[in-house]
């Protein structure tokens, strides 16, 4: 199979008619979408106009065109990332019809580098879920590319599923508590969630401001590295953006891993984890050892024990304030203008938010109330600091930590329905803690069981995304 870099070369050398290619690709997306529901919107018009512009510039021998890192590559965008003039809903009915006035920072970067925006991918409403079943009122649930009766994970479900199905494409995903690596694991693709602040959040519709991160999902590790190259870096419009020099992530692909130290998180294996998953993850670790890495067990108690509680406390508190702005004024859903302001916005929110959004608003509002703030929200903030400290201690010894990405295989929709909200939340047990600590993490596909993909989770210290790419590509090579 040709790689994306080969594809870009062919576009630059005019061996591919980019307009014709894009047209066919959009048709393919429509076909895939009929079956799998990976898109909320296919941005056909924008994609074709971008392709035509590239064709024109190539014809004119435009000087800059040959330096563009993503020239002609199809980029799908999770629906909570703003694309100017393209419907952006974050998967919620309350934003149906909303077309942002501006591009998210990452969109500007992608456009500058010649990436072609093919559409907005489906997700749990505002990112509230791990199976992409908590879609907004009237939205369709995306299906697993390997078994349509199963979930493709969430919340970046559409992005991960599409990455498995569509070639010459890279997806922009977003993670608050595991929403990049978990669907990547369920769909058998690579997903990299960077350090908090590495990629600007400007133009990302907030779920939880202190946790949200935009990252990349792709079939190959080099695809993921390429898109990370484009979107990483400081942005003055996001106060939490880190002012550190950009790195060339592609240079880490195929870089030898000899001597690197891997910590196997003891608490992440054993009870509660399906046997086949454990077996495949250990195979992945063996691959790394064969390439010269050294693996050793380490105990990390706090993240597994308190991760879920800490995460849901902080995430719902922040989410409940972020969702307050959706009230039927200025943009998004409206209802008949009747009664007082309180009656009006209550009606708008009651009929346009899904059940999980309402649940999280209630949970978060409760955790912020006087008397509970200290017991819940502020306590969670303290535990978060302790968790970061525990990870930091581990990274003094290890280059990366490893665990399964998910403790179960992609579940059937009929089984998900039987889960209580708390069981549903527990699915994130492996992924929430690196998210709470703002650490970069990567899903690496390590095998199949019952024709369903299994993923390994690699976690590195802050700003060490390069090491993750290095390790991920070593396993890819081993395949």
């Amino acid at each position, binding site marked *: 199979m040709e790689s994306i870099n080969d594809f870009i070369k062919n576009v630059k050398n005019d061996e591919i008619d980019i307009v014709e290619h894009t047209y066919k690709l959009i048709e393919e997306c429509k076909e895939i979408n009929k079956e799998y529901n990976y898109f909320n919107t296919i941005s056909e018009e924008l994609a074709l106009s971008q392709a035509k512009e590239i064709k024109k510039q190539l014809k004119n021998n435009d000087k800059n065109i040959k330096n563009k890192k993503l020239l002609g590559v199809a980029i799908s965008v999770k629906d909570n990332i703003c694309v100017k003039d393209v419907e*952006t809903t974050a998967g919620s009915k309350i934003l149906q019809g909303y077309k942002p006035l501006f591009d998210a920072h990452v969109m500007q970067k992608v456009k500058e580098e010649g990436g072609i925006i093919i559409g907005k991918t489906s997700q749990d409403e505002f990112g509230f879920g791990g199976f992409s079943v908590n879609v907004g009122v009237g939205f369709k649930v995306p299906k697993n590319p390997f078994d349509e009766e199963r979930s493709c994970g969430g919340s970046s479900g559409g992005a991960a599923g599409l990455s498995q199905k569509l070639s010459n494409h890279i997806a922009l995903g977003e993670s608050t508590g595991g929403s990049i690596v978990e669907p990547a694991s369920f769909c058998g693709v690579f997903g990299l969630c960077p350090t908090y602040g590495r990629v600007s*959040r400007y*133009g*990302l519709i907030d779920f939880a401001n202190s946790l949200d991160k935009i990252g990349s999902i792709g079939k190959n590790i080099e695809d993921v590295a390429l898109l990370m190259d484009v979107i990483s870096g400081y942005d*003055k419009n*996001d*106060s939490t953006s880190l002012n550190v020099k950009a790195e060339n992530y592609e240079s880490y692909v195929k870089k030898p891993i000899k001597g690197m130290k891997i910590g196997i998180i003891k608490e992440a294996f054993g009870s509660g984890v399906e046997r086949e998953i454990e077996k495949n993850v250990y195979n992945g670790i063996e691959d790394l050892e064969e390439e010269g890495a050294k693996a050793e067990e380490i105990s990390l108690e706090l993240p597994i024990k308190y991760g879920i509680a800490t995460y849901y406390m902080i995430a719902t*508190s922040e989410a409940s304030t972020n969702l307050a702005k959706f009230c039927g004024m200025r943009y998004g859903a409206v209802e008949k203008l009747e009664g007082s302001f309180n009656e009006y916005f209550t009606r708008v929110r009651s009929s346009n938010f899904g059940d999980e959004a309402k649940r999280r608003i209630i949970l978060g*509002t409760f955790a912020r*109330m006087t008397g509970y703030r200290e017991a819940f929200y502020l306590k969670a903030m303290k535990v978060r600091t302790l968790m970061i400290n525990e990870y930091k201690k581990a990274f003094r010894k290890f280059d990366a930590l490893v665990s399964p990405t998910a403790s179960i295989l992609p579940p059937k929709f009929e089984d998900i329905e039987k889960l209580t909200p708390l069981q549903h939340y527990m699915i994130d047990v492996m992924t929430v803690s690196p998210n709470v600590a703002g650490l970069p993490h990567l899903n690496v596909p390590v095998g199949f069981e019952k024709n369903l993909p299994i993923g390994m989770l690699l976690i590195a210290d802050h700003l060490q995304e390069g090491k993750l790419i290095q390790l991920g590509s070593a396993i890819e090579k081993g395949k």
Partner: protein
Amino acid sequence: MKKFTGDIVIGLEIHCETDTKTKLFCSCQKAKKDDLPNSRCCPICLGHPGSKPVLNKKAVEFALKLCLALNCEISPELIFSRKSYFYPDMSKNYQISQYEIPLGKGGSLKLRNGKEIGIIRVHMEEDPASLIHPAGLKESQYVLVDYNRSGNPLVEIVTEPDLASPEEARDFMKQLITVLNYLEIFDINAGIIKADANISIKESEYTRIEIKNITGFKEIERALVYEVNRQKDEIKHGKMIHAETRAWDSEKGITFSLRKKETEEDYGYIIDTDLTIVDITDKWIKEIKKEMPELAQDKVKKFVQKHKIKKEDAEILAAEKELAEMFEKVAAEINPILAAKWLRRELVRVLNYNKKELHEVEIDEKHIIDLLKLVENKRITDNVASKILEKLIEKPFDIKEYVKKEKLEAVSDISELEKYCKEAIKENPKAIEDYKKGEKKALNFIVGSVMKKTKGKATPREVNEIVLRMIKD
């Protein structure tokens, strides 16, 4: 809680817009008076999904200056929180404000009567949009929202309940405006300063009533006087005072009930993690201190020591930044004691008469210097100078030319004065007789007659001397 003993207990929460060029969290220019509604806003101050706030550093410096001027203890970290409540003027249905740790705390400000008023906290926050009620606050069926104001920088100043009367509340506001003015962080012509007042009286066992949204220092006294009388009246008629929030209707001159206050509102504060914590370093504070202008109390000291004017005069001059600055410029050229006398008495009198503030009139120190030079050199009399000043306030003009044209120069030629005196004595023999009989007041009549003849261009003291000499002769 403090145990109150006074007749009236008042605490203020004052919101003041600081005079930055752009808004607090976006780069929108702040709106001017004539800007069209909703013409100064962007996705950030409109709270559009995906937009993020970025802090305006200038606004922090302005707030720090105020904290320093009010002798506050300054927090080493600036932390913003979200104050959540639903209201149509809120673009995000939360306001970016400060909660646990305000920028400044534990300060004070002195009233004119010397009483120190405690400042609990000074914090920064964003202004909501403005609501326009087309048919009046209570009557309108709908409201219009103008986001031009949304996101403007505010400082909130919360006082201890140390104010004992509406007059003290007014003076506190006045003193605060003086400080803001000296610091040059408030645009007195366009900036908004508003107060919420908590007021309780002894008769109601200090049941707290909050009055919202009182604009300006004159209004605060009016509103509080009304409220004190209203509460006393209610009690006199056997009614109970319940804790509630009221609004001030400036046009009708009344307060009216907005809502009963059974419990404190719960704003569910959390830290706004879209903004990072800003370190307020000692180095930064030092730099700001260096930039701090002289404040009123510094000016008073300087005026007394350097210019040797009376402390009482110095205090009046320093109470208003423009007046103090004008004094300094005038005193550089004119005898400071003369300058002080003319500025604090005559200028203030003429301004008050015209119901104007100094910044509202066109005259500047050059006009005053021209005028007082003539007075100092006895080229014109005090009387004439006062009349010129009255005219100057209306519209400035060239004083020297005016004096020449209108022939207002003082009659300093003795022989000419003697001529007028001789005439006056001749025309009023009865007055001379009365004076000689011992009626000293009769002399004033002669002097007045001479003044009339010279159209006020003579100094009464000089005329007095000449007339006396002539009578004796």
